[in-house]
């Protein structure tokens, strides 16, 4: 703790005419409007946002989509598959014609067929999005809740509270996270905490990812709170007689929403990858429910005969993560007061 500076902030705003004039031009627009305008101009970010929306729509409308464009995700089509290698046949009526290098992609099966079972890849990808997004969003929400509450409390109260919470964040960051997550997912038996099957798996994934990733949000919120609490409006609120609760949630929180929003958007792709990694390592969702990471881990057995099985789930993860990253980056830039255009 150091003495509060008495130094008057004498920075005269003369960073060039541009700044001055722009302020007045922007005066009648709210920050969000400005951000939205900037964001709209950012074509790449807009593309990201559109893909994100499409993905969410895809996940939500999965049953409808598969009804219209595909097959039930767990329906076998083994008559289309080569029994020996598991690959999709070029011509199901003529097994001798060999294996289709495109994995049986056709107007019926847009993304081809899963080796051996012949399940429709399109449906499985679409349903896989459900799990991926559900877990990623759930975990992000958990991160945000824990991170915000602890971050704001640490930042605002400082002292011992801050030390304890900051150390806790250090500890979480010092854990070999992935190891821990797989280990933990492995030691929890089915039926624990009154949950069973996929409800338990999803709950567990959300809990593990959320519980271990909150320090990322926590640190940002704490940092922002530290800066914000030096702002005079906090003192002003105190001098009006406002209590801590009022200051934390009425004065500070509204100012934190933007960074929280931005960073949770950027946390979602991290969480998607995390979920995929866990599924890949075999501690994900139960079969036959499809998950992207799980499909990828199954795919290595078939890369020689069905390369699409490696590529499609990988691309699904890649595109989703990329879209969220683009969206989040764009959001951050749009809200960044320093970005000049």
């Amino acid at each position, binding site marked *: 703790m150091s003495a509060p500076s008495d130094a008057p902030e004498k920075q005269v705003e003369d960073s060039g005419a541009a700044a001055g004039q722009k302020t007045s031009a922007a005066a009648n627009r709210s920050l969000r409007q400005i951000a939205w305008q900037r964001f709209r101009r950012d074509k790449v970010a807009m593309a990201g946002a559109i893909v994100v929306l499409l993905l969410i729509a895809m996940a939500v409308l999965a049953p409808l989509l598969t009804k219209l464009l595909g097959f039930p995700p767990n329906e*076998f089509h*083994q008559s289309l598959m080569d029994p*020996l*290698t598991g690959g999709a046949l070029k011509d199901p009526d003529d097994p001798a014609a060999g294996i289709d290098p495109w994995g049986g992609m056709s107007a019926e099966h847009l993304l081809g067929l899963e080796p051996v079972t012949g399940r429709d890849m399109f449906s499985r990808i679409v349903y896989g999005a459900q799990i991926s997004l559900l877990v990623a969003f759930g975990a992000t929400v958990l991160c945000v809740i824990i991170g915000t509450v602890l971050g704001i409390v640490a930042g605002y109260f400082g002292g011992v509270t801050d030390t304890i919470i900051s150390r806790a964040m250090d500890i979480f960051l010092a854990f070999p996270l992935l190891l821990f997550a797989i280990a933990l997912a492995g030691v929890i038996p089915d039926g624990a905490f009154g949950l069973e099957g996929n409800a338990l798996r999803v709950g567990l994934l959300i809990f593990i990812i959320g519980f271990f990733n909150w320090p990322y949000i926590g640190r940002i919120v704490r940092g922002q709170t530290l800066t914000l609490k030096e702002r005079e409006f906090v003192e002003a609120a105190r001098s009006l007689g406002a209590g801590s609760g009022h200051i934390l949630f009425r004065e500070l929180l509204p100012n934190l929403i933007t960074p929280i929003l931005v960073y949770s958007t950027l946390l979602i792709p991290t969480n998607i990858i995390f979920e995929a990694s866990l599924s890949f390592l075999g501690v994900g969702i139960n*079969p036959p429910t499809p998950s992207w990471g799980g499909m990828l881990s199954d795919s290595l057995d078939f890369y020689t005969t069905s390369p699409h099985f490696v590529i499609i789930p990988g691309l699904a993860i890649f595109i989703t993560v990329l879209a969220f990253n683009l969206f989040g980056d764009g959001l951050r830039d749009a809200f960044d007061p320093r970005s000049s255009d």
Partner: protein
Amino acid sequence: MELRKSALGLAALGVSSALLLSACGGGGSDGGGSAGSYDQGTTEVVNASEESGGTLRYAISANMESTDPGNTYYGYVWNFSRYYARTLLTYSPEPGAKSTEPVPDMAAEMPDISDDGTSYTVKLRDGLTYEDGSAVTSEDIKYAVARSNFGEDALPNGPRYFKELLADSDDYEGVNANPSDPLAGFDGIETPDDKTIVFHLKKPFADFPYVLVQPQTAPVPADSDKGQQYQQHVVSSGPYKFEDDWKPGSGLTLVRNEEWNADSDPIRPALPDRITVEEGVDQNEIDQRLINGELDVDLGGTGLGPAKKGEILTDEAAKANVDNPETGALRYVAVNTEVEPLDDEACRQAVMYAADHNSLQRAWGGAAGGEIPNDVIPPTIKGHDPDLDLYPSEDDKGDLDKAEAKLEECGEDGGFETNLGVRSDRPTEVAAAEALQASLKRVGIEVDIKQYPSDSFTNTQAGSPDFVHENELGLNVYGWIPDWPTGYGFLSYIVHGDNIKDAGNSNVSELDDEQINDMLDQAVETGDEQEQERLYKEVDRRVMEAGAILPIVFEKSVLYRPENLTNVYFSAGYAMYDYMPLGTTNQ
């Protein structure tokens, strides 16, 4: 032997590779230069040669279970450990059906059986020595049996047949109970002199020679025993010895044991000068290196991983280096006889009718992965009945009408719900589970797949009746390869009611049928082979009728024979290539 299925895809991740070691299945190898033909090694010696020298290179996708012959249940260790640990008997070193016959190794000749069938006397050959030159004595063999079977701190990983079978030993508490005289009270084995060993059985047991094939009869000098740590350096009685101490995961190198006396050993030509084992190599990597000639044998013996298998089987030229033998393993779904509503035989039969065998076989890799079975006992074992077909259906896709009728019969019109346990890290088994789930759904049987780690599956989940009942695991994907290739060796553990255990239970169906139990007991007490075959066939039919075992495939492995490997053939006894005669043209 323990039945393990290699989980190839994930092997790449190391995930399943930890679990995939297989007791059965074979490592690929093939005669040098002169390529054999497709499946030649299943029935003939390929690339026969007496050329010695060179380094024979093994690799395995996980870590070796153990090097200690007393502490292993994996077929590949049983096969491999013979390089440095000789057993009393071993499987006949020749291809085809004869490879399942026990022949003398350290024993001078086959055991002398007493008239009542309860005592087996074995004479040791002359010239048996350890790597330090000292002589192998009958007491060392008795000690080895004691350390691996008796007492609460017996070595944990091996079988316990001696404990079950030997007379006058129930009070014996193991080699650590009395440090001054470790064998005091162990009266089931007599060692009248250094060259004679007599086994006293509680009752006649016709398959006992097969028990003497197991590596637990390899001699261990009492003063070298370090409990589980003995695996670091097994004192060699064979043609090779450890170059350095073994640490799990860091590989093993064997060099020639100069004290080994070739005259005393009819089994091992001991061609290579050095033998190396690399552990923890990705399955695809192993396959690739076999194909490139950078490796000689896949130690695990389970054959090519799915990725390379697909590639090789579709390549006519490469196929010449492939053998596709039956491993003697049955992959099946254990239909539990206690969990409702499957406690009703009709409900189990409904499952049998509804299953789509074509789909299940595809999950196992199609025809190269195994044949669709109509009974339980594999074709290589006496008692197999090729004419049995209790649940016929068109194209093996299941008979839904019959299934529905059976459902009605057991009062579950329209189906029921149950759970299906499966080892999560074995993609093939998971695929089979999914296939079964899909086919049962056709008659309204809703199956929920529950995944468990394979390391604990037999001990604590599928192998724990309490767990099975509590979690209503009506179905479990399981597999069995016999510890020895007879009807009893195959059937007793998976269908004999007396073998239902609280933990580590392999009678996952919990089938306890008096008729079956009696017939099995009779079969193993009689020495009459025809009577045995009749009884086994009867049991086979009865098990199928009871619907306790839904066979998936009689498994086949796809073994690759590198061209620089000599004297390659498939040994049905170990369900993989016989490792002892192998030589290499690689220097």
